[in-house]
């Protein structure tokens, strides 16, 4: 009897394991995005509505965005998703994650393996080339053929064309800018005046020297971890808004020489000791902490960093009520020092991301309507301003900004943006993949002189041309 029992148990285990294998295979297609979840992924941020069982008429949409983690719009996104779910009776399986290279890799891999989400908020530059080439997302024109009102509240001229076929795919929400944040407490201690619209690299270097002499670090940047912002502006400073988005054919041509000069400019700042002592071994979080704790004066970063600085001024980063306004007043944002044909007020920025509807969702009669409804809701005239805040949007009728809803740093950011003379996209968004490795990951070797800047630029161009 005992032996029969064991035999039955083993047989049951075998059958269950077979069922388990079958079930797992089915799940792979049902909830794909979660399978490649990076450590930073915030699945706990899944919209509460998604946890509720969908009603009989409801559709579950798989959505992935970058509105997660420290993103200033993470809460706005959760609120908007909840409101849309309540309005439509649909549910959302949200696999949003912090925007980084791991997130990009995950999304592209999901497309490659046929496990893409139904709707995604993703970059509209070269990052999207692979899935657009594969026909895995639907163009706005194709959607409008069926839904004429789709994204008609947007100014089409501001929606980026795909680099693959020139069509428009991604409906934008909020724009971005990259500028220079300033810790005024450090400037005051070093006797340096707040930089303005006429700030030049020469004046910047003179200020940096004063800051070093006062015992502070001038620039908060982790060159061994996130050299992206300095990379972009160093190149921009050797070009102009007119030709910044051109990619060199060789390190010897005009654009190539500008890139090499940009790398050498960073090297010069490194050799002058204007970056933190541990800039090659520190993480971006560490150098950002130096900035917020009053040990470094300047930080070049994106509009999303406003939220990070505000959070650093709160005793509880999750609770805006704990904001120390006196501490926040120490921070300001200004233009990145200019050089040559680039004025300080020529900034990097634009609308680099947007909502895509995938072909998989479009071809599914049950999901098509829900996907269109979701994107239309998220890009509506009422929702976009909540996300755009102090950045740009593509709305035709953007509502007037209510400054009373903003914190002092956001107001300073809006004031700074009002003086901008041009916004140019980031050339690094067009220069994707392994071609960036020699000058991004290789930045420490460049600034320490272990690799010649020209060789590194040429290596990157060779990889780009080989793609």
């Amino acid at each position, binding site marked *: 009897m005992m032996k029969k029992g064991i035999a039955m148990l083993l047989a049951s285990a*075998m059958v269950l394991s077979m069922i388990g*294998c079958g079930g797992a295979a089915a799940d792979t297609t049902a909830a794909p995005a979660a399978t490649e979840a990076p450590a930073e992924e915030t699945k706990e941020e899944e919209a509460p509505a998604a946890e509720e069982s969908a009603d009989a008429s409801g559709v579950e949409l798989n959505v992935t965005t970058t509105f997660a983690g420290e993103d200033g719009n993470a809460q706005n996104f959760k609120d908007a998703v909840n409101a849309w779910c309540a309005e439509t009776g649909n549910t959302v399986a949200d696999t949003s994650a912090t925007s980084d290279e791991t997130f990009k890799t995950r999304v592209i*891999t999901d497309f490659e393996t046929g496990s893409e989400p139904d709707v995604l908020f993703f970059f509209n530059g070269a990052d999207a080339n692979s899935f657009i080439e594969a026909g895995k997302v639907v163009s706005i024109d194709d959607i409008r053929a069926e839904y004429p009102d789709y994204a008609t509240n947007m100014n089409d001229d501001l929606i980026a064309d795909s680099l693959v076929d020139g069509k428009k795919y991604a409906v934008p929400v909020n724009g971005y800018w990259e500028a220079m944040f300033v810790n005024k407490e450090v400037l005051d201690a070093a006797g340096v005046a707040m930089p303005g619209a006429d700030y030049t690299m020469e004046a910047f270097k003179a200020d940096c020297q004063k800051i070093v002499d006062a015992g502070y670090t001038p620039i908060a940047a982790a060159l061994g971890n996130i050299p992206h912002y300095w990379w972009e502006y160093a190149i921009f400073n050797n070009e102009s808004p007119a030709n910044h988005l051109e990619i060199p054919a060789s390190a010897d041509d005009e654009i190539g020489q500008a890139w090499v000069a940009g790398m050498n400019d960073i090297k010069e700042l490194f050799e002058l000791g204007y970056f933190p002592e541990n800039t090659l071994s520190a993480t971006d979080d560490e150098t950002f902490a130096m900035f917020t704790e009053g040990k470094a004066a300047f930080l070049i970063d994106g509009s999303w960093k406003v939220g990070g600085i505000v959070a650093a001024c709160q005793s509880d980063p999750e609770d805006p009520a704990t904001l120390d306004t006196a501490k926040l007043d120490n921070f300001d944002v200004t233009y990145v020092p200019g050089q040559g044909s680039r004025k300080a007020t020529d900034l990097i920025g634009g609308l680099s991301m947007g909502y895509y509807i995938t072909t998989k969702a479009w071809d599914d009669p049950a999901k098509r309507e829900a996907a269109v409804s979701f994107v239309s809701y998220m890009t509506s005239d009422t929702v976009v301003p909540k996300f755009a805040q102090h950045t740009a949007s593509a709305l035709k009728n953007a509502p007037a900004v209510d400054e009373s809803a903003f914190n002092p740093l956001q107001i300073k950011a809006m004031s700074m943006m009002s003086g901008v003379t041009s916004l140019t996209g980031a050339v690094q968004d067009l220069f994707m993949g*392994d071609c960036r490795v020699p000058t991004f990951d290789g930045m420490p070797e460049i600034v320490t002189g272990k690799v010649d800047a020209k060789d590194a630029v040429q290596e990157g161009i060779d990889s780009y041309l080989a793609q």
Partner: protein
Amino acid sequence: MGANIYKNKKPVSLFLFPAFLFMIVFLYYPFVKNIWNSFMEIKQLGGTGSGVVSPWYGNYAKMFTDANIRTSLINTLIMMLATLVFQVGFAIILALMVDNIRRGRQFFKTVFFFPIVISATALGLLFNLIFLYDKGMLNQILEMLGKAELTDWKAEGIAIFTMMLPVIWQYVGFYFVILITGLNNIPEDLYEAATIDGATRFQRVRYISIPLLHNVICTCAVLAVTGALKVFDLPWTMFPKGMPLKSTFLTGTYMYYQTMEAKNVDYGSAIAVLIVVLGVILSKVVNKIFREKDY
């Protein structure tokens, strides 16, 4: 029917089939596919690639000129030696000491084993705080002791040792538990006989415990060497992208870097093959050196 079901081996094969299928799908197929991928030109994870690398052995040839591979192999070799000497060495000492105490044996077993159950990523973050340049625990202690300058524990030159310390610390308990189990299997009457013959405690350890632990130590050595080849999570958490100046790459972290960060999936696959080949060769070598004995 009765006992006949145990003479018929067919049901056994049937029960083994799911596990076999699982191994085929999730281990052997990816392994063979990885070898195939190492000869293809692949820039996106999950992609089929744009053709065969030119020349077809290009990724393997590249390893001979890639300075980072050289760095990662040297670092891995140092890690192996440190693992063997310090992890297994400390584990032997701790196991012998704990085996010789009467009280608190279970307490020390738990304490030494505890780091194993903590996620390596969490440990990496913990040690990041300890070695932090500004306001790190270590630098604060040194500051209190009067040191004026901050020490960058992650600077080139000392970074590799900063990385090894937590890795070694974490796994001492693992080998400790294996060794203490081995010590428990040594018959008590051998020690009693030695005591009657007048052997001191040291002599009992030297002439009974250590020789009879030989096979267990051999197993630990093989595990330590192959484990050092695969170690990834803690070093990556503390030193992403081999920083600083790509001086802390190990074979595991470099493979991940090439695949996920540099988007060279094909080259990452080739490095994975190298790791497997090295693992097989080194475990054979270690087996030869610490040849198991029959008692």
